C-alpha cells in the first residue's frame, strides 16, 4: 500500500510514526475535550428531551394547588378559570409505610386514582401488574424505585398508616410517574429509594380513609400555552383561600422537577467549563509540538522547496500531519463521549426513574465538537504553518546559527560561583525560551487545576453534610405530625422508648414578599434554647434565635433581596391566614434549601394561636431505636419520620455513585493531560537537544549527568507549576461553586489540603513517569552519529 503513496505522503506516515507517542498524547487530550463535551452536552439534551417527552406524554401538571379540604364541586370553577386547559382533583397525603424487614418507619405519600382507571393529568406508567380492582379497597399501585429497593412485586403486601389507622395493603401493580422522576422525600437532599415510597389507591377507598368523601385536597392543572401562570396562581389562591390553600405552585417548584433541573444545570456547567480547558491544553500542545517539529525539519523543508515543491504543497504536508492528529483526536472523543454518555444514561436511568432514556447527541452537537477541534488545530498551529510557508529554501538549508544565549539573565551570571555548568545550561535554556517554558508550566498547572476542580467537590459535599448534620441539624429523628398539636404532644413523644430529648417545631406555609419579589416558603418556628436543630451565622457559629422578627437563610435573603432590619411581608397560608409585616432580624448560613426561622413562641403569638407544634426533633438512644420505631409506626398522630443517619448514609452512597464516578474520570483525564504535557515537553527537548546531550556523553558525562540536564528543567517546571496549579484549581473550584449555587443547595468552597496533595501527587507521578520514559531513550542515544552529523 505504501508504494501507492506519493513520496511526500510516505514521509508523512513515517514522520507520524516517529512521533506516535506525542501525536497520540495530543489526540487523547483533544479526545478528552471532545468526549467531555459530547457527553455533557449530549446528556443534557437527551435528559431535557426525555423529560419534555415524558411530561408531555403523561401530561405532568403545569400547576399544583394543594388545599386542606375542598368540595369536589369546586372543580368546575377551577376548570373555568382563564388559562386552564384541564383540571383534575385528587387526594394526596403523607403516610408512614411499614415493610417487612425494615424496622425503621418509612415516609411515603399516597395518592388517589380516579375511578376511570388512569388519571388524565399526572398519568402513571404501569410497568408490571395491573390497576387496582375497584372492588378491592386494599389494592394499591406502588412506585417502581421503592418496590425495587425492597424487592416487592405485584401480590406482595405492605402496611400503611392511613390517617392514624394501620392498614394492610396489597400491591397490584408497579408504576413510574413523571411526578417522582427524582423520588425524594420532602426535606431530604438526596433520594433514598428504600426510605421513600409512593402508593396509588382507588379514590373512594382513600377518601374513606382520610374523611374526604366528595372532597379533594389537591387540584392539578394543565394550562394553555398562551396564559400567564402567575396570574392563574393568583386566581387559584384567591379561589381556594377558603379551603385552606397553602398556595398553588408551578411545575418549576415541584420537588422532583427542581432536582432534575438542578441536575441539568450541573451538566450544563460541566459542559461549559471543562471541555474548553482540555481544548486549550490541546491547543498548547499542538503549538509546542508542531512548532518544534517544524524547527527540527527546517532543512528538509528547504530541500523540498529547492526541489520545486510549492510553499503551499509543503504547508499542506504539515497540515495533513496536524489533520491526522486532530481526526484521531475527534474519533477518540466521539467514541469516548458516546461511551461515557451511554454509561451516564444508564446511571441516570437507575437514579432517576424514566420509562425511557436514550443517550442520543444530535448531529449538531457532533458538528460543534468537530468544529471546535478544528479551531483548536488552527489556533495551535497557525504560526508554525505560516513559518513553513515563509521559509526560503536557501536559508533553510544552511544550518541555523547556534542560538544566541549572550543576552541571558544577569542573575544567572551572579550565581556563577554557586552552580555547576549543567545547572547553568538548564537555567539559560529556560531563560532563552521563556514562552516555551511558560507554555509547559501552564499546561502542567492546568492539569493540576483540573484535578483539584474535579475532586474538591467531594471535600465540599462532605463539609456541607458535616455542617448540616453535625452543626445545624443535630437531631437523630424528625417526627412530623398530621395536624398542629398542642405542645403537650411533645410529652407523649418523650415517653416513647429511647427518647433522650425532644424539641418542638412548627412549620407554617407562607408567601414571603419584598416588593415584586415573592417566595413560597415555610417558616420554621424553633424553641428559643434549641439544642438539636439550630441556626448558625455565616461563620458557622450557632446563634440563638432572636425573640422577635424573622431569620432568613442567606440564599433566601439573596433571592428576596432583603437584609437585616428591613420589613418582609409574610402572608400566612394556614389558620386565620394573617398577613403580617415582620422585620428581618438575622441572616443565617444554610447549605440546603431556603429556610426561614422564627422563635416558636413569637410565631404562635403572631398567629394568635395557643402553643401549637407540627412535630419534634428527637435525640435518641441508639440502643433502643427498634422499640422507638415500633412505637412511632403505631402512633396515629405521626405523619412522617425522617432519620438523620439514614439520610446521611443515602447521601454518602449517592455521592460515591455519582460524584465518585465523575471524580474518577476527571482524575483520569487530568492525569492524561499531565502526562501529555510533560511527556511531550521532555520528548521534544530530547529530540532538539539529542546531539548536544550525545556530545556530552562522548566527553565523558554519565547517563545520569545528561539526564539531569534534560530532566532538571522538567522537574523545575513541574515544581513551579504546583503552586500555580493549586491557584488555578482554586479558581476553577470557585467558578464551579458559583455555578452550582441553586435554591436546593449550595456547595461551600472548601478544598482540603489532601485534595491539593493528591492533585500534586498525580502531577508528580505523571512527570516522573514521563521522565522515566524519556530517560530510557537517553540510554539509547547514538554517540557515534554525533561526531559526524551537523545540526
Amino acid at each position: 500500500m505504501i508504494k501507492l503513496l506519493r513520496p511526500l505522503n510516505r514521509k508523512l506516515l513515517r514522520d507520524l510514526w516517529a512521533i506516535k507517542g506525542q501525536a497520540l498524547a495530543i489526540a487523547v487530550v483533544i479526545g478528552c475535550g471532545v468526549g467531555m463535551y459530547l457527553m455533557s452536552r449530549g446528556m443534557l439534551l437527551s435528559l431535557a428531551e426525555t423529560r419534555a417527552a415524558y411530561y408531555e406524554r403523561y401530561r405532568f401538571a403545569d400547576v399544583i394547588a394543594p388545599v386542606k379540604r375542598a368540595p369536589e364541586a369546586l372543580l368546575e370553577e377551577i376548570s373555568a378559570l382563564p388559562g386552564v386547559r384541564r383540571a383534575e382533583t385528587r387526594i394526596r397525603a403523607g403516610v408512614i409505610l411499614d415493610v417487612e424487614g425494615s424496622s425503621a418507619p418509612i415516609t411515603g405519600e399516597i395518592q388517589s386514582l380516579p375511578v376511570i382507571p388512569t388519571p388524565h393529568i399526572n398519568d402513571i406508567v404501569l410497568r408490571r401488574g395491573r390497576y387496582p380492582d375497584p372492588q378491592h379497597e386494599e389494592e394499591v399501585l406502588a412506585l417502581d424505585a421503592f418496590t425495587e429497593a425492597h424487592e416487592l412485586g405485584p401480590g406482595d403486601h405492605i402496611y400503611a398508616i392511613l390517617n392514624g389507622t394501620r392498614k394492610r395493603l396489597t400491591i397490584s401493580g408497579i408504576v413510574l410517574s413523571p411526578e417522582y422522576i427524582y423520588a425524594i422525600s420532602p426535606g431530604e437532599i438526596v433520594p433514598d429509594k428504600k426510605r421513600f415510597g409512593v402508593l396509588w389507591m382507588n379514590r373512594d377507598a382513600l377518601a374513606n380513609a382520610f374523611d374526604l368523601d366528595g372532597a379533594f385536597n389537591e387540584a392539578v392543572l394543565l394550562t394553555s400555552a398562551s396564559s400567564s401562570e402567575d396570574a392563574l396562581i393568583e386566581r387559584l389562591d384567591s379561589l381556594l383561600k377558603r379551603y385552606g390553600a397553602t398556595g398553588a405552585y408551578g411545575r418549576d417548584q415541584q420537588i422532583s422537577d427542581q432536582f432534575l433541573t438542578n441536575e441539568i444545570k450541573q451538566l450544563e456547567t460541566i459542559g461549559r467549563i471543562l471541555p474548553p480547558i482540555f481544548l486549550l491544553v490541546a491547543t498548547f500542545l499542538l503549538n509546542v509540538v508542531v512548532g518544534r517539529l517544524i524547527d527540527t525539519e527546517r532543512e528538509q523543508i528547504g530541500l523540498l522547496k529547492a526541489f520545486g515543491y510549492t510553499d503551499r504543497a509543503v504547508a499542506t504536508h504539515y497540515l495533513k500531519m496536524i489533520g491526522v492528529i486532530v481526526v484521531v483526536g475527534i474519533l477518540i472523543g466521539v467514541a469516548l463521549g458516546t461511551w461515557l454518555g451511554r454509561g451516564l444514561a444508564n446511571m441516570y436511568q437507575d437514579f432517576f426513574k424514566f420509562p425511557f432514556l436514550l443517550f442520543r447527541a444530535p448531529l449538531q452537537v457532533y458538528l460543534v465538537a468537530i468544529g471546535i477541534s478544528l479551531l483548536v488545530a488552527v489556533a495551535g498551529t497557525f504560526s508554525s504553518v505560516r513559518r513553513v510557508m515563509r521559509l526560503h529554501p536557501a536559508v533553510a538549508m544552511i544550518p541555523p546559527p547556534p542560538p544566541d544565549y549572550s543576552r541571558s539573565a544577569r542573575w544567572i551570571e551572579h550565581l556563577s560561583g554557586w552552580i555547576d555548568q549543567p545547572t547553568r545550561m538548564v537555567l539559560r535554556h529556560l531563560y532563552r525560551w521563556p514562552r516555551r517554558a511558560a507554555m509547559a508550566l501552564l499546561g502542567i498547572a492546568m492539569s493540576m487545576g483540573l484535578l483539584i476542580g474535579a475532586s474538591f467537590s467531594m471535600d465540599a459535599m462532605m463539609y456541607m453534610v458535616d455542617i448540616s448534620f453535625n452543626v445545624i441539624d443535630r437531631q437523630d429523628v424528625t417526627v412530623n405530625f398530621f395536624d398542629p398539636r398542642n405542645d403537650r404532644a411533645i410529652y407523649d413523644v418523650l415517653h416513647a422508648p429511647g427518647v433522650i430529648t425532644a424539641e418542638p417545631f412548627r412549620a407554617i406555609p407562607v408567601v414571603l414578599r419584598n416588593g415584586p419579589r415573592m417566595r413560597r416558603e415555610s417558616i420554621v418556628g424553633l424553641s428559643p434554647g434549641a439544642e438539636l436543630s439550630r441556626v448558625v451565622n455565616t461563620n458557622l457559629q450557632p446563634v440563638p434565635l432572636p425573640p422577635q422578627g424573622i431569620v432568613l437563610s442567606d440564599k433566601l435573603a439573596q433571592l428576596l433581596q432583603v437584609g437585616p432590619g428591613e420589613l418582609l411581608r409574610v402572608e400566612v397560608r394556614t389558620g386565620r391566614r394573617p398577613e403580617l409585616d415582620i422585620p428581618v432580624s438575622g441572616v443565617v448560613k444554610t447549605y440546603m434549601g431556603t429556610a426561614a426561622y422564627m422563635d416558636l413562641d413569637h410565631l404562635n403569638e403572631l398567629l394568635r394561636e395557643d402553643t401549637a407544634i407540627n412535630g419534634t426533633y428527637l435525640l435518641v438512644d441508639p440502643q433502643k431505636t427498634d422499640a422507638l420505631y415500633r412505637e412511632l409506626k403505631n402512633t396515629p398522630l405521626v405523619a412522617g419520620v425522617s432519620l438523620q443517619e439514614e439520610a446521611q448514609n443515602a447521601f454518602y452512597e449517592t455521592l460515591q455513585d455519582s460524584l465518585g464516578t465523575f471524580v474518577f474520570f476527571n482524575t483520569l483525564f487530568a492525569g492524561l493531560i499531565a502526562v501529555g504535557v510533560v511527556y511531550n515537553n521532555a520528548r521534544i527537548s530530547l529530540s532538539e537537544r539529542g546531539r548536544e546531550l550525545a556530545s556530552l556523553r562522548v566527553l565523558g558525562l554519565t547517563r545520569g549527568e545528561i539526564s539531569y540536564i534534560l530532566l532538571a528543567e522538567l522537574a523545575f517546571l513541574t515544581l513551579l507549576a504546583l503552586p500555580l496549579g493549586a491557584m488555578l484549581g482554586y479558581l476553577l473550584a470557585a467558578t464551579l461553586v458559583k455555578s452550582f449555587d441553586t435554591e436546593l443547595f449550595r456547595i461551600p468552597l472548601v478544598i482540603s489540603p489532601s485534595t491539593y496533595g493528591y492533585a500534586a501527587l498525580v502531577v508528580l507521578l505523571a512527570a516522573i513517569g514521563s521522565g522515566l520514559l524519556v530517560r530510557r531513550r537517553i540510554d539509547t542515544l547514538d554517540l557515534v552519529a554525533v561526531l559526524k552529523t551537523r545540526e
Partner: protein
Amino acid sequence: MESEVTTSTTAAFRAEGLTKVYGTGEATVYALRGVDLEVPPGEMVVLLGPSGSGKSTLLNILGGLDSPTSGRVFFGTRELTAFDDRHLTLFRREHVGFVFQFYNLIPSLTARENVGLVTEIARQPMPPEEALGLVGLEQRMDHFPAQLSGGEQQRVAIARAIAKQPNVLFCDEPTGALDSTTGIVVLEAIARVNRELNTTTMIITHNAGIAAMANRVLYMADGQIQKIERNPTPCAPDQLSW
C-alpha cells in the same frame, strides 16, 4: 577506574585483529577487517583515507565510543574491549579528549563554561582559563558560541578536550568545516597541546597535506591499514601545504 601513567615502554594503544561488521546477510558491511595497531605515547598520528575506509570506526573504537565485532584493544595495560558501558564512560571522562568536525559546543554556555563543563568532572584538570590560553582565546573566554567564529569555536572545543589533561586526544576532521587560514590556527593549537602536554594525538582527515605534521601516518583503505609511514621530522602547521 584508577588513573595510571603510561610508561614509554607500553604503547598508548594497542589493537589486535580488530574487526567491525555492520548489518547481516546481503547488507553486511565490513568497516574494519582485522586491524593491528600500536600507538606509542605522546605521538601525533594522522589517519588518512577515503570515505568508508574505516578511519572513523577505528577512532570510535579506540575512543571507547564503539566496540569491535572481534579483536581486542588495550589502553596501556588495560583491555578496553572488556569494559562495560559505565567503565567506558569513566575511561572517556578521565583519559580521552574529543574534538568534533562540527565543534559540538553547548550554545547555552560561554567558552569558559564549555571548558568548565569538563573540568568540573575531571580528576586533575587545568583551570579553564589556562586551557583557553593554550589555544589563544584568552580574550574571548566569556563569549557564547553564537558570538565566536568557526575557528574560534573549534579552538574552544580543543580547549575543552585538553583541559582535563587527557592521555589521548582524538580529532575527527577538526578542520573539515574551516577555511585554510583558520584550519592552520586550529592545527597549531592541537600541535602545541601535543608538544607541551605530551598528549597522544590522533587526527582523522581527508586532507593529505596535514600528514606532514605527524610523527606517524596511517593510510587506510577497505577497513585495513594499507601503509604506515613514520616521519622523523614533522613540520610546524604553518609550514603545511594545504
